[in-house]
């Protein structure tokens, strides 16, 4: 099956005509995927490959599994997958790989499956960066709060890691509010307003996603409170609040890199026949192109560079599909 010889290695990194790669996600209408898919397409174009954007518009694991299974029906060369939940995807991913379709995960992982690579920004690094920035701005003995979204792993990690980091390194920082707002701006408004009431000395708030940040800023502005807001991800509305100085900073995963490297990882896995590493892959029968973790990094968005993060401006003249 993988008998390509080193002599023709220069030919292996090209797509055959019609060779297709799929990017499969949940809640496929969410704007987060847009720049990721752009990166994916740009990389694919460089190798002469075709791409498909697929998945389910719903927040529904069975629907995503069905769409993944349906992707497989069409025998693509590989799939870059954002698995909504890790364990339910073990069996489908393994089935895909056993049938010769390579799978790489991004932004969420299925570590126990046979996927060949995982591309993501390092949520722990984001949390650590956010913690250091908060301490730098408000000192190391202030009150802070977090909003969260229990059940979504990357958001969970951003919050729990920050709290742990604070406890370990800045024990005088006091966590005074911790509310679940589930990306709902109205819920975030209500929760933030209440936290502000209960904690007049609140100095900073960390929010793991942008939807809640919109509601939180509205509450802070209405209460005329002086609170440092930091959040992850970005939307046009929070971008504008950064420009206006109401949000201090946002940490945004490098979505373009995520998609670009995601394509590379799955493409390389599918074209691993030119690769003969020093290990046991031949006898054990796994794909030699194993990359446990690719960090796509994150961007720090502040007043100074905000203009570069306008997604609507970026998408001018590009094809989203």
């Amino acid at each position: 099956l993988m008998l390509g010889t080193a002599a023709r290695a220069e030919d292996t990194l090209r797509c055959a005509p019609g060779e297709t790669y799929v990017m499969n996600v949940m809640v496929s209408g969410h704007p987060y995927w847009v720049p990721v898919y752009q990166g994916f397409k740009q990389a694919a174009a460089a190798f002469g490959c075709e791409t498909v954007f697929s998945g389910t518009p719903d927040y529904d694991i069975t629907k995503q599994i069905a769409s993944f299974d349906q992707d497989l029906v069409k025998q693509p060369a590989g799939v870059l997958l954002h698995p909504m939940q890790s364990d339910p995807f073990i069996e489908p991913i393994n089935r895909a790989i056993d049938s010769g379709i390579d799978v790489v995960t991004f932004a969420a992982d299925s570590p126990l499956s046979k996927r060949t690579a995982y591309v993501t920004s390092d949520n722990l690094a984001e949390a650590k960066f956010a913690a250091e920035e908060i301490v730098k701005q408000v000192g190391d003995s202030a009150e802070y709060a977090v909003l969260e979204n229990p059940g979504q792993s990357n958001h969970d990690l951003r919050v729990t890691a920050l709290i742990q980091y604070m406890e370990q390194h800045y024990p005088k920082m006091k966590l005074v509010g911790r509310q679940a707002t589930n990306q709902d701006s109205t819920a975030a408004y209500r929760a933030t307003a209440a936290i502000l009431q209960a904690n007049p000395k609140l100095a900073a708030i960390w929010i793991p996603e942008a939807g809640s940040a919109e509601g939180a800023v509205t509450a802070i502005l209405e209460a005329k409170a002086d609170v440092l807001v930091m959040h992850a991800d970005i939307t046009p509305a929070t971008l504008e609040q950064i420009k206006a100085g109401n949000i201090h900073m946002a940490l945004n995963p490098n979505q373009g890199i995520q998609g670009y490297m995601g394509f590379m990882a799955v493409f390389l896995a599918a074209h691993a026949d030119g690769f003969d590493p020093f290990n046991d892959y031949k006898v054990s029968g796994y794909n030699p192109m194993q990359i446990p973790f690719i960090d796509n990094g994150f961007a720090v968005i502040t007043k100074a560079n905000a203009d570069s993060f306008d997604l609507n401006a970026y998408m001018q003249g590009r094809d989203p599909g």
Partner: protein
Amino acid sequence: MESSMNVAATGSPRSGGLGRLLRMRETGLIAIILVLIIAMSFASPYFLTWVNIRAMVMAFAVEGIVVVGMTILLISGGIDLSVGSVTALAMVIAGLLFLAGVNPWLASGIAIAACTGIGAIMGVFVTKVGLHHFIVSLAVMVIARGLCLLGTGGRPIGLYTLPDSFKFIGQGSIGPIPVVILIFVVVVVIFDFLLRRSTAFRRVFYTGSNEKAAAYSGIRTKKVIFLTTTLCATLSGVAGVIYMARFGSAQPTFGMGMELNVIAAAVIGGASLKGGSGTILGAILGTILLSVVSSSLALLDVSVYWQDIIRGSILLTAVTVDHYLNKKRGRG
């Protein structure tokens, strides 16, 4: 059988001051909310501050406008699952038009008109085709959300250049009172009055109570249902425009799950899912109850993992207590 014997909340008031208050359908709910407020004011010194109250009211004011539309629709015997999507669609339409250079007031007017049109289409499917509100509005919920995504590519639209005069309706205050709250109060007072006293809205009660008897009383019941369906969508559109002014952006994913919240508020407030009964005052009290509970849990910094459990339990307790209070009074 027993429960159907309750004095129905037809909104026709009775004589006498205090006695009348005690006999009102809403008294139980008011009592429950008061108990909650008193308990909270002991639990947290911040609860009864002006800023907190303002924030709590701001949290439900705009949704309250949708609750008004839903309550009227429920009374006429309908239901609308699309309110969240339609609210978002109003934001998106107004936002896109504004970005295309249309005056924001005109853009808002067009957006509200579009929502009205959607309501009218739902009304046609219900009254002319004869489908059930539930399934029609479910389909429209999905379609409207799709239109939001299509219009924006799924991306929120930032509307930083909205003129201050327009932002005023979402962010401004007249004296100490935010404009949003004023709009909400005006809408509630007007519709509460009309629903209790006007002949036009009395027909809504007749239609919802017994559509056939209403038809046999010469009421054009299909027209009534068409109009309540449309009105609910219009008010969702109004809410969307106000949200846009308030947030300074249009969010295509806004309002997911809003329908359950809104219907729950109306039902807690005494609206019947079978039609024929309900009051605006009650529905708003239901909204207040749900919202105050959420705000209180946040204020007390209750653990996230406990919040849902407590919220659900309070909801169940409140409706049970309210039910017994009404039953007792019904039996005199």
